[in-house]
């Protein structure tokens, strides 16, 4: 049994690792080396990286970062107090809970048509504002859902004690309850940022031009002329590496976020 399990895990480890390594190798190959997929020994070059850096991908990285930070920032201001009200006072009742879960699972295909028209009519097409608004449609429900779970885990007595000690409701919330959930809040923020960073669908439709985010720019490398394959590999890595780093930071609490808030496993 143990041996079988070890083999299985090892095989899966290879399956997971392999695409990363392949793309990393491709990003270091010259167009000539790229023609033979089986070449594993070659003289590495940084040309692809230089060209992608010169192509203005920095602007897209910046756009993605701005969108992610703004989305998560608004998420903190709006979703955290909302989640607290839902957790502590059951505010808004069942309808609110159901509504938030529904918006979390609503397919983007449903919202993209009206959001596109709204952006069009308000003159916000191809702006980051439109992308931020669209990303809030999924980041807000997810952050709320997570935070409800984390607030549920804070003992009521802590807060009651704070009220006895003369803090007001808001004072107790900010000084006593919030510090208790800070690690969870951090995880919810990073996770929200990753969701925003990864979105192609909304960003492509709402801002495919000069305001394009990184996934839209990466999709633009979708070409199979051998010459640009190396650059595509670089662009893939540029979008992947930050989320890989984030994933290591956030995973442990993600389990708790999903299991306490979302799932109750």
């Amino acid at each position, binding site marked *: *049994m*143990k041996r079988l*399990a*070890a083999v*299985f*895990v090892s095989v899966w*480890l290879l399956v*997971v690792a392999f*695409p990363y390594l*392949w793309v990393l190798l*491709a990003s270091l190959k010259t167009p000539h080396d790229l023609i033979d*997929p089986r070449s594993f020994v070659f003289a590495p070059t940084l040309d692809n990286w230089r060209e992608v850096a010169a192509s203005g991908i920095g602007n897209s990285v910046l756009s993605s970062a701005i969108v992610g930070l703004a989305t998560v920032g*608004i998420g903190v201001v*709006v979703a955290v*107090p*909302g*989640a607290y*009200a839902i957790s502590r006072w059951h505010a*808004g009742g069942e309808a*609110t809970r*159901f*509504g938030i*879960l529904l*918006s979390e*699972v*609503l*397919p983007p*295909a449903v*919202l*993209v*048509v*009206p*959001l*596109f*028209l*709204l952006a069009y009519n308000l003159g916000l097409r191809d702006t980051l504002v439109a992308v931020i608004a*669209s990303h*809030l449609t999924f980041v*807000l*429900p997810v952050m709320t859902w997570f935070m409800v779970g984390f607030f549920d885990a804070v003992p009521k007595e802590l807060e009651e004690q704070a009220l006895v000690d003369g803090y007001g409701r*808001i004072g107790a919330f900010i000084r006593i309850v919030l510090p208790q959930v800070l690690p969870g809040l951090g995880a919810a923020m990073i996770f929200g940022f*990753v969701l925003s960073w990864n979105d*192609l*669908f909304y960003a492509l439709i709402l801002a495919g031009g000069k305001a394009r985010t990184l*996934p839209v720019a990466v*999709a633009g490398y*979708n070409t*199979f002329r051998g010459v640009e394959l190396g650059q*595509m*590999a670089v662009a*893939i890595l540029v*979008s*992947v590496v930050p989320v890989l780093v984030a994933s290591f930071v956030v*995973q442990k609490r993600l*389990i708790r976020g*999903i*299991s306490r808030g979302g*799932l*109750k*496993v």
Partner: protein
Amino acid sequence: MFRFGIRHVFLAPLLVVLGGIVAYPLLYSLWLSVTNFNILKQGQTRFVGLDQYLGLPANETYVAALVNTLVFVGLAVAVELLLGLALALALQQVLPRRGRNVLRSFLLTPMFVTPIAVGLMFRFLLNQQLGLIPALLAQAGVRIDFFGSQLALFSIVGIDVWQWTPFMLLLMLAGLESLPTQPFEAARVDGAGTWFTFANVTLPLMRPVIAVAVLIRGLDAFKVFEYVFAITRGGPGTATETLQYEVYRTGFTFFRLGEAAAMAFVLVAIVLVLIVPLYRRVGER
């Protein structure tokens, strides 16, 4: 009687924002779906009742997209669940304390990776001329066109399995870790074998976790778009048309936004059917 209290001060901003960016667009879209709205012919917009919906069954591409999406979701979620559960059990068996967290973290990484990057990565890997896997297979005398009309949808399923099995693994690990220990001790005392214990103790205890994981992943899988956009654009023929891609094409390359809204609302109906059992499970507090 309703009194506006502190709880409403906390909740109001969230509801106002969600109302503005989710509820209002949803109603707006419902309205669009009963018109013939086309952004290029805005002057001719009129109410057409249910015509957009009634026209869908005759739209072959749309029907293909619906069927493909259902096949995709069913297959992908089933494979991901089986693999995720098997991996979680295997990980529990083999992992030494030391390497555990690093290995687990690494195995979970694909679910965080930008889906368009995943799509391009696999398009590259599986490409006939330039990809490694067809090259290795060719060496062994096997010729497979991963994105030909026979296999394309299954290749897309495979890519989804690479990216999302980690999600199942994550939930299954969390589920396994939260199981009570007594039933397992009882089974051991009774001399139950590994398989017997798995089938009669582990699985029944894991049922709620599995149900929720399948629902969440299933709802998410309906959104498949990036792989199709990156690799096949719905082809060959209609082999990989999916609902979300079809909405994108109808709405934003043909600009028939009324029709696209109607297509999307069929998705809402599917989501609503799935979400009610999910809510029952999650909402029980």
